[in-house]
C-alpha cells in the first residue's frame, strides 16, 4: 500500500513538473516578449518591467529562469492579466470554483439519473425497456452540447420565460464572495433574504446544469449498462444462482458491487469531455467560470491569462484523475493481485 502511494505521488509530481515546464515554455511560444507573457506587464510600464525582469533573471540562462518561475508560482505571484490588469492568481481562484460548482452539480445529477437507468436497462437486457433507454441515450449522446444549450435558451428563457438567460444570480443580490461557491456563499451570508437568493441562484443553475448533464447522463447510462451486463454474464453469478439464491439476492450481494467497480475508471476517462462541455456551456450562459474566462482571454489575446488558466485547469484534471485511479487501485483487490503477479 505504501508502495502504491509512493508511486502515485511520484507520478503526480512528475506530471506537475511537466505541466509547469510546459506553461513556462508557452510564454516563449506565444507571440510577444516572454517576460511580458510571464508577468502580464506591458513594455511601457518600464520600471515595473525591469523589476520583474530581475525577478525572473531574464538575462540568465533558461534553467535559472525556470527556477525563478517556479518560485513565483508557489508564492502565488502569477502575473497580471493583459486586459484587466488584475492579478491572475486571484482571478483563477475566483473563477475556478464557479466551474467546479457547475460541473459538480451536473455530475451529481447525471449519477443520480444515469446509474439507476443503466441498471434497469441491463436487467431488462434485450427487452423493450432496454431498447427504448438505449435509443434515448443515443439521442442524448449525439446532441451537440452548444445546440442543446441554445435550444433550451430559446424554449425556456425566450419563449416561456421560466428561467433567466445568463449569469449565476440575479444582480439584485450582492453576495460577498467567501468560498466562491455561490450556494455556500449564500448560506454563509446573513445580510440578505436567503430564501429569495437561493431560489434565484437555483433558477440560474437549472439550464446550464441540464445542458451539461444530458450528455454525461447518457454516458453514465451506457457505461453502467455494459458493465452490469458483463458482470451478470460472468461465472460467479451463475454459481450464486446454482446455490439457490433468488435473482434479487444475487443482484444485491454479488451484482451491484462488482458491476460498479469498472464504472469509475471509465468515468474518469470521460472527465475531459465533461470539462470541455462545461467550458462551452459556460461561454453560452455567460457563467463566470474558468472556461468562459479562458475563451474571453483568447479573444483578447491575453497570453498571461491563458498560461495561468491552462496550468490551473490541467493541474485540476491531473489531480482528479490520479486520485480516482488511486482510489480504485487501493479498493479493488483484483487490481492488487494483478500488480503482484507482474512484479
Amino acid at each position, binding site marked *: 500500500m505504501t508502495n502504491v502511494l509512493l508511486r502515485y505521488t511520484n507520478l503526480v509530481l512528475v506530471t506537475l513538473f511537466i505541466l509547469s515546464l510546459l506553461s513556462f515554455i508557452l510564454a516563449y511560444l*506565444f*507571440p510577444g516578449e516572454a517576460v511580458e507573457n510571464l508577468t502580464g506587464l506591458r513594455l511601457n510600464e518600464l520600471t515595473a518591467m525591469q523589476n520583474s525582469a530581475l525577478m525572473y533573471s531574464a538575462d540568465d540562462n533558461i534553467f535559472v529562469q525556470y527556477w525563478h518561475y517556479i518560485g513565483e508560482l508557489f508564492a502565488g505571484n502569477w502575473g497580471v492579466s493583459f486586459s484587466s490588469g488584475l492579478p491572475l492568481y486571484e482571478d483563477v481562484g475566483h473563477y475556478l470554483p464557479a466551474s467546479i460548482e457547475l460541473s459538480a452539480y451536473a455530475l451529481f445529477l447525471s449519477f443520480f439519473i444515469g446509474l439507476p437507468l443503466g441498471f434497469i436497462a441491463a436487467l431488462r437486457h434485450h427487452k423493450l425497456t432496454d431498447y427504448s433507454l438505449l435509443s434515448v441515450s*443515443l439521442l442524448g449522446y*449525439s446532441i*451537440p*452540447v452548444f445546440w442543446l444549450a*441554445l435550444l433550451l435558451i430559446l424554449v425556456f428563457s425566450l419563449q416561456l420565460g421560466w428561467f433567466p438567460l445568463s449569469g449565476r444570480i440575479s444582480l439584485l443580490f450582492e453576495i460577498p464572495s467567501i468560498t466562491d461557491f455561490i450556494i455556500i456563499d449564500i448560506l454563509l451570508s446573513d445580510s440578505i433574504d436567503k430564501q429569495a437568493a437561493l431560489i434565484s441562484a437555483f433558477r440560474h443553475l437549472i439550464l446550464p446544469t441540464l445542458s451539461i448533464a444530458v450528455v454525461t447522463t447518457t454516458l453514465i447510462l451506457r457505461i453502467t449498462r455494459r458493465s452490469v451486463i458483463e458482470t451478470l454474464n460472468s461465472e460467479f453469478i451463475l454459481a450464486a444462482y446454482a446455490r439457490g439464491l433468488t435473482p434479487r439476492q444475487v443482484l444485491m450481494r454479488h451484482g451491484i458491487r462488482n458491476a460498479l467497480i469498472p464504472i469509475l475508471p471509465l468515468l474518469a476517462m470521460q472527465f475531459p469531455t465533461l470539462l470541455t462541455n462545461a*467550458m*462551452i456551456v459556460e461561454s453560452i450562459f455567460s457563467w463566470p467560470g474558468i472556461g468562459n474566462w479562458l475563451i474571453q482571454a*483568447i479573444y483578447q489575446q491575453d497570453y498571461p491569462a491563458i498560461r495561468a488558466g491552462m496550468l490551473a485547469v490541467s493541474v485540476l484534471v491531473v489531480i482528479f484523475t490520479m486520485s480516482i485511479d488511486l482510489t480504485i487501485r487501493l479498493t479493488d483487490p483484483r487490481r492488487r493481485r494483478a500488480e503482484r503477479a507482474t512484479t
Partner: protein
Amino acid sequence: MPQPSLYQEEHHPSPLQYTWMEFKKNHIAVAGFFCFTFFLIITIFCPLLAPFDPNMQQIGDLLIPPSWYPNGGISHLFGTDALGRDLLSRIIYGCRMTFGISILLVIVAMLLGVGLGALAGMSKGFRSSFINHTLDSIQAIPTLLIAIIIIAILGPGLVNSMWAIALSLIPQFVHQTRDFIRRELSKEYIMAAKLDGASKRHIFIHSILPNMGEMLVVQATLALSVSILDISALGFLKLGAQAPSSELGAMLLEGIEVAYIAPWTIAVPGGALFVMIISINLVGDGLRSALRNRLLH
C-alpha cells in the same frame, strides 16, 4: 425470391460477410448506415447538389422562412439567413466542410496513432513507457484546452483548430493499437511466425495488421463523432472556422443574432449536425454489437 438450394453444400460466410449479416439484423443501424452514405454523397458531390452559391447574398430575400412555414417559398427550401444566403446550399456546403474535414482528421489521426501504437506495443521498457505516459497526459487534457493553447500560439483559424483536434484524437488510437498488439503478441499464431524466424516488422505487417481492421473501423466511428462535435464546437466559439465560412458550428453562431425572429437559422444547421452524429453513432454501435455477436457464435 430466395434461390432454392439444390445441393447440400455447406456455405461458410467469411468473417466480413458474417459481420454484415449480423449488422443487417439491426434495422436501425442499417438506417443509420444509409444516412451515413447520404452524408458521404453530399460531401463528395456538393457543388452539383447545392441550388445556389453558399455565399451569394440576395438582398431582396432576407430571412425568408423555410418552405413548411405558411409564408415560406419553395425556391429556398430551408429559407434564407440574415444576409439573404440560401440555407439549404449553406447546409450542403457545411456538411462538406464539417463532415469531410472530420473524416480527413480521423484518417490522419488513425495513421499516426497506429504508427505510434505499434511502436509502443512492439517495443518494451523505457521507450514504451515514455510513449504511454506522454499520451496519457495528453488524453487527460480537455480538447478545448489543447485547442485554446494551439490557437493562442498560431492564431484562430480552421487549419489551426484542425491541428488541435487531430492531436487530441491520436491518443485513443495509440491506446487501442497498443493494447491490441499486446493481446495478439501472446497468441500462438504469432509464436508460430516467430518460430519461422519472422522479424518484428514482418510480424506486425503480415500477422497483426490484417487482424486490426475491424477494431480500427469501430474506433474510427467513435473518433469521427468526437471530431465532428469538436470541430463544430470550435467553429461555434469563433476559435475554428471563421464567420463567412459555411462550417455548421460557425453557421449556428451567426444564427444566434437573429434566433428570436428566425429560429430556423439555428434549428436547421444544428439539426443537420445532430442527424450526422446520430447516424455515425448508430453505425458505430451497430458495428460493435455485430462484431460482439459474431464472436459469441
